[in-house]
């Protein structure tokens, strides 16, 4: 069932197993799945990305931009009440965004705003109109203040950093009870501005590990779990009592190859590596078909901006060997691949290792905890950023901009591949400014061609987002990584 959007009946209690929020639930600092799931129960965004990656207006009713997309004007929804009592005004939105854009604030959204919007540049036009004056023109700006940037739930201007005290927001639910590290429950918000939530109640139980979550669903103790990776999740995929809500996402694992040193400094070697991958087999085997193949660029086919004309890279051992020969490493070489224990990455690494063996590339795996892998997350103090070859997880984004920028721009702060290319930088800059899909596609074609030639990063596949639910539960919107439960109910 691709869309489980059948309407459930109202009045149910929905029990959910999610990952334990890693720390205090605070919109400014939250960085993990568990925490953001908590945020979006009572909190709302200006707009929300949809399954087709378009934006749905929520607290904003509409938005527009000036000619070069450097100033964006958002109209706010009138009559929206905060759970704490006040009415949503421009000041609240400005305070929320400023809070997140303030470098002094330990804001997790800071990197998303970096180079796009600075503190103080959101201006009030009237009580229901806000203008954002960007640092530089940016065509996809609404995504930056949408659910894509999950810290951006709109809070009253008076918010003091004590979110766990009152769980303020404008959403369809309000908090019933919260016990840190144990769970939380919500009840319907009777004052919600839109359609009132169907469930009477939602109950979230926190789990540290995936397996107990799976067992809890199988054991009937919960009705759905937040996300299921295919690896390790086979038990549920075949379970007749479980319905899998499946949505295409742009989440993927980037395999970076250092372009500035080591065996991969020669782009022919990088291309050869890319040619060893049997991507169909990856999707069919590693993802059990729940995903789609990648073409070594961030442009997943779900992105409207993706260029439709670029040829798909296929496994070609002969050509790979030729390339290696040409690069002077026809006998193959040894290389270390460093990566993290997360989702199916270790298994992916094993498959890469086996693929590469066909052309004589001998990959030695070093698989470490996420802590160890990311280290201090700055160059020189991070296995992630310093390794010759590595695999890094990237979550779903509504637009490819983030993927195009930080990991690939010459001065990108996540540029583990150490890829430095002026042409690329210029193309991405231009892409950023462009707001119409046609223009974006033209640029995308150029970018994709360039990346296929250079291949600093392998994008082997994009995996689907899977939410297993108890059979009969309906109304969970198929939006990757965002559990909105207000339409949920059993049929």
């Amino acid at each position, binding site marked *: 069932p691709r869309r489980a959007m059948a309407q459930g009946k109202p009045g149910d209690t929905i029990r959910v197993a999610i990952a*334990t929020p*890693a*720390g*205090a639930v*605070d919109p400014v*600092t939250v*960085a*993990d799945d568990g925490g953001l799931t908590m945020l979006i129960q009572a909190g709302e965004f200006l707009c929300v990305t949809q399954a087709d990656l378009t934006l749905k207006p929520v607290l904003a009713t509409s938005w527009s931009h000036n000619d070069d997309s450097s100033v964006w004007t958002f109209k706010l929804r009138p009559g929206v009440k905060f759970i704490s009592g006040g009415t949503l005004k421009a000041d609240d939105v400005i305070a929320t965004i400023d809070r997140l854009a303030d*470098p*002094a*604030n*330990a*804001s*997790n959204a*800071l*990197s998303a705003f*970096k180079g796009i919007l600075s503190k103080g540049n959101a201006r009030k036009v009237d009580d229901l109109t806000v203008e954002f004056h960007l640092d530089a023109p940016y065509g996809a700006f609404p995504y930056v203040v949408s659910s894509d940037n999950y810290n951006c739930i709109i809070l009253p201007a008076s918010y003091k950093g004590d979110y*766990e005290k009152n769980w303020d927001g404008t959403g369809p639910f309000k908090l019933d009870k919260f*016990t*840190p*590290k*144990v769970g939380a429950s919500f009840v319907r918000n009777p004052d919600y501005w839109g359609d009132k939530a169907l469930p009477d109640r939602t109950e979230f*139980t926190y*789990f*540290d*590990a995936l*397996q*107990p979550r799976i*067992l*809890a669903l*199988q*054991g009937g*103790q919960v009705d759905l779990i937040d996300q299921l990776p295919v690896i390790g999740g086979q038990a549920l995929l075949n379970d007749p009592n479980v319905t899998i809500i499946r949505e295409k996402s742009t989440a993927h694992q980037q395999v970076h190859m250092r372009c500035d040193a080591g065996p991969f400094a020669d782009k022919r070697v990088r291309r050869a590596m890319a040619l060893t991958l049997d991507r169909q087999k990856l999707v069919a085997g590693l993802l059990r078909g729940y995903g789609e193949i990648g073409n070594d660029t961030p442009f997943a086919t779900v992105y409207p901006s993706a260029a439709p004309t670029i040829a798909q890279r296929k496994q070609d051992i002969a050509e790979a060997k030729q390339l290696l020969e040409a690069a002077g490493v026809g006998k193959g070489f040894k290389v270390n691949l460093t990566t993290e224990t997360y989702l199916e990455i270790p298994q992916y690494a094993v498959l890469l290792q086996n693929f590469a063996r066909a052309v004589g590339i001998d990959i030695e795996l070093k698989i470490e*905890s*996420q*802590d*160890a892998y*990311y*280290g*201090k*997350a*700055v160059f020189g103090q*991070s296995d*992630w950023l310093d390794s010759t070859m590595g695999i890094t997880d990237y979550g779903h984004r509504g637009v490819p901009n983030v993927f195009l920028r*930080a990991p690939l721009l010459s001065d990108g*702060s*996540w540029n583990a591949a150490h890829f430095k290319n002026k042409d690329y930088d210029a193309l991405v800059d231009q892409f950023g400014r462009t707001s119409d899909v046609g223009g974006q596609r033209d640029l995308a074609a150029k970018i994709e061609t360039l990346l296929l030639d250079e291949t600093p990063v392998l994008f082997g596949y994009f995996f689907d987002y899977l939410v297993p639910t108890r059979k009969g539960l309906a109304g969970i919107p198929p939006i990757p990584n965002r559990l909105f439960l207000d339409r949920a109910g059993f049929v």
Partner: protein
Amino acid sequence: MLGLLLRRLPYAAVTLFILSLLVFAGGQLLPGDVGRAVLGPLADPRAVAALNHQLGADRPALVQYGEWIGRFVRGDMSQSFAFRAPVAPFVGAALWNSLKLGGVAFTLVVPLGILGGIVAALNRGRLLDRAIVLVGLSATVVPEFVSGIVLILVFGIGLKLFPISATPPPGAGAAVQLYYLVLPAIPLVFIVFGYIARMARAGTVEALDSDYARTAVLKGLPRRDVVMRHVLRNALLPTITVVASQTGYLVGGLVVIETLFHYQGIGSLIYTAARGHDFPMLEAGIMTVGVIYVLSTLAADMLLAALNPRIRAGGRA
């Protein structure tokens, strides 16, 4: 008795102090920092620095420790870095959970283990003895995650006799809570049974072979009286120490069981705190386990002294 307690208390305090120092020193080795741990790898370094500053985690280590210990001795466990809330309720809840699970396991395994050991000793060399020893040995050495998984499969998912989670629904009564704790307690019983049985067996064998047991037999006492009056009390003395040494594990060492059965105990609290660089939480968790351990060894010593007049009189053990 009181004298013994007063003599031992300073030692216990010193032990705990050293423990806190060790944890603190060890904490300095953890890679990364709390700001990065909270905000994730993709966060802006300025935000990370800001958070570290807010939490005071960027101050010199000794200053942090000084402040922490200063509060700790006044009974204040400080604020959690990750949760930015007082640590005490977290530790309290986790401890209470651990004590419940450990307590269930303890009350099951101690009588069982002692009985097993004594029965084995009284049947020394016979089939029953070998059977008990072998069962104890095997049960003790099979890791919890192996036995736990089997139990979950068979009784939780297969037969659906027991819940597979140890956490009862909120507001559950004592009986329900107990019902939820049965399955997770069993692997612990397995593990500890062997130790206790082995110790009880050895103690009983030794006591049975002792000269005073011979005296008792040669007095013409019936075997039952020899065992009950002369053997058991001496036989179980070493077992007490073993039981006490296991309480640390039963309370604080259950990371695997807590993970398998989804239970918020002190073991997982320590582990997540360490991974999250939540230093105050880590220290508090470890000190709690340390205090439990120290208290239980102290209790064991007192019990030993009560049962063994030789220790009662003598000075340091």
